[in-house]
């Protein structure tokens, strides 16, 4: 435990390495997850497009498998292999690419168990990147996890820091249900304390980042940092915030959210995606249905505006939720 802080992406790498050591049935499938396939150079030249799987191929050369660019086939193969006793970790490079392979997750992996009368077990995990902030424009910046959360049979996991990333990915791989693991690309270089040894964090348990009596902020992935910043600012004015990071949105830890709102009476949900049929309105909707009596003010959403992600830096900055927007929303609940 005494080692230096490590990066979010290294925590993810470590989780995979430990799972592969522990369990022979864990395999990795994806584009350039090793790299150099078919060339005369040494393998492992890439380790995934941003190097997250780097170093795993030399350790497990049979189990780190580069695939052609054909997401339907290899994501489906991850699903199929997992229904046959493996625990495949499929890497869908950017979650923006879900549109070319969604069927294998939403109609296949998600439904096998139910359709087949409880006889199927499909412990597949799909790792995939989310998030804006990199001038990666409209097709490489999205966070479409609400679409996955709407599908019974799938679990959706969204870590916000290196410690959670490692523990939640280990839990996802060990979990017997299909898991989609969303990694915010802007968090990859975030550093934090991460135990070297194996550990898991249960899926479906929110993390209460801080407790305060006035308002409950629910925030995901990168938005947790922004929420903390806003909370710090408000603390100077005597406004005390609870910050809840659900960590998984399906299953969602409603109890933690509801009991916090029962204490604070105020809710602000921060999400990098859109409000329409997204996580923010979902949480506001569920809270208003289930702990209406506790609410002292209208719940507020802080989300991206309903536009594709723009390329230009100034537009992208305006597009993203930030501490200022969160602060404004919190103040609104205090009016």
């Amino acid at each position: 435990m005494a080692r230096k802080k490590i990066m979010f992406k290294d925590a993810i790498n470590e989780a995979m390495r430990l799972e592969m050591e522990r369990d022979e049935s864990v395999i990795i499938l994806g584009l350039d997850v090793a790299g150099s396939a078919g060339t005369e150079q040494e393998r492992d030249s890439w380790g995934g497009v941003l190097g997250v799987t780097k170093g795993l191929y030399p350790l497990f050369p049979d189990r780190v498998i580069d695939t052609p660019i054909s997401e339907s086939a290899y994501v489906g193969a991850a699903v199929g292999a997992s229904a046959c006793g493996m625990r495949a970790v499929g890497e869908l490079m950017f979650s923006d690419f879900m549109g070319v392979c969604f069927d294998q997750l939403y109609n296949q992996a998600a439904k096998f168990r139910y359709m087949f009368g409880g006889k199927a077990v499909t412990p597949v995990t799909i790792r995939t990147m989310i998030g804006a902030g990199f001038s990666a424009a409209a097709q490489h910046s999205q966070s479409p996890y609400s679409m996955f959360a709407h599908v019974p049979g799938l679990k959706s996991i969204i870590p916000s820091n290196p410690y959670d990333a490692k523990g939640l990915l280990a839990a996802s791989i060990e979990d017997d249900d299909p898991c989609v693991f969303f990694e915010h690309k802007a968090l990859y270089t975030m550093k934090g304390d991460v135990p070297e040894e194996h550990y898991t964090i249960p899926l479906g348990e929110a993390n209460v980042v801080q407790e305060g009596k006035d308002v409950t902020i629910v925030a995901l992935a990168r938005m947790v940092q922004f929420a903390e910043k806003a909370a710090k600012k408000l603390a100077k004015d005597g406004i005390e915030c609870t910050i809840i990071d659900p960590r998984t949105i399906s299953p969602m830890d409603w109890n933690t959210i509801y009991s916090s709102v029962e204490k604070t009476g105020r809710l602000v949900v921060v999400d990098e995606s859109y409000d329409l049929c997204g996580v923010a309105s979902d949480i506001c909707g569920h809270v208003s249905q289930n702990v209406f009596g506790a609410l002292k003010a209208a719940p507020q959403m802080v989300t991206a505006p309903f536009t594709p992600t723009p390329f230009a830096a100034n537009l992208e900055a305006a597009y993203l939720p930030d501490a200022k927007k969160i602060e404004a929303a919190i103040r609104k609940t205090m009016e």
Partner: protein
Amino acid sequence: MKTQLSKEDLLKAYRKMREIREFEDRVHVEFAKGTLPGFVHLYSGEEAVAVGVCEHLNDKDRIASTHRGHGHCIAKGVELEGMMAEIYGKKTGTCGGKGGSMHIADLDKGMMGANGIVGAGPPLIAGASLASKLRKDGSVGVVFFGDGASNQGTNFESMNLAVTLDLPMIFVLENNGYAESTSPKYSAKVGSENIADRARGFGMPAVTVDGNDFFAVYEAAGEAIERARKGGGPTFIECKTMRYFGHFEGDAQTYRPKNEVKDARANDCPLKRFADAVTSAGLVDAAEIEAVDKEVLAQVEQAVKDAENAPQPDLDALMNDVYVSY
């Protein structure tokens, strides 16, 4: 005729084909009465394909099926009693009544499911075959799919993936001349007579066989499966066949020539052809064939009765088995 199959094997294969035929013909009748719900796609006429392939397989080998899945299920050893109950939506069904005709599966038998999504099977079996390869247990994966499905991107991608990873996987194309009402002459104009030619371009052996000739299918499949078991990679087998009923039950089939099915039933029925071949070669007696026919008839009759009398699923099944844990 020449075959390496013992009399026992021959009778077993024939019985499977007869089970499929009887099962499907009976479902056709029941559907027409209005007693069966949902979308039902029947396999009558294509029996030699499923059975010709699956006679080479054991429970460790995996198959993926299509919307037209009953034949594959039976050929792979799924019990027809449970299947019939499933189609009736009963608690005693293979999937507890929650899947129905389009989703019958029995993973213990290596049957990974009928599938409502055209082209969903090939990636899944690529995965199953990958598992076989990594486990080095000599098992193989077989995906069945139609001429219509052969145009789906998932199918092409999976062929390429199977070649890339050298998977022990067999692609079995059931070319029955129609995808719903559309002919492959329109939708799979590959510049030749055979869709298999398109597959060959992906870099794997590809053959076209008479899918109504059990022995032709059996031989082609045997060669491919043996090669796959030995690490020789994927093969594509196109089987030309015909479906005797509509695309789904209720289809008026106005897109078909009047006598197409009648002629086929008379002159090209895979069961008749099989029976004729083995009896005239003196390998099996006509009486033995007839005995199988009778036994299967009775079995299906009983399966229908049991299904009719079986209870509906308990209501709490609605919420069960969405997840292992949640």
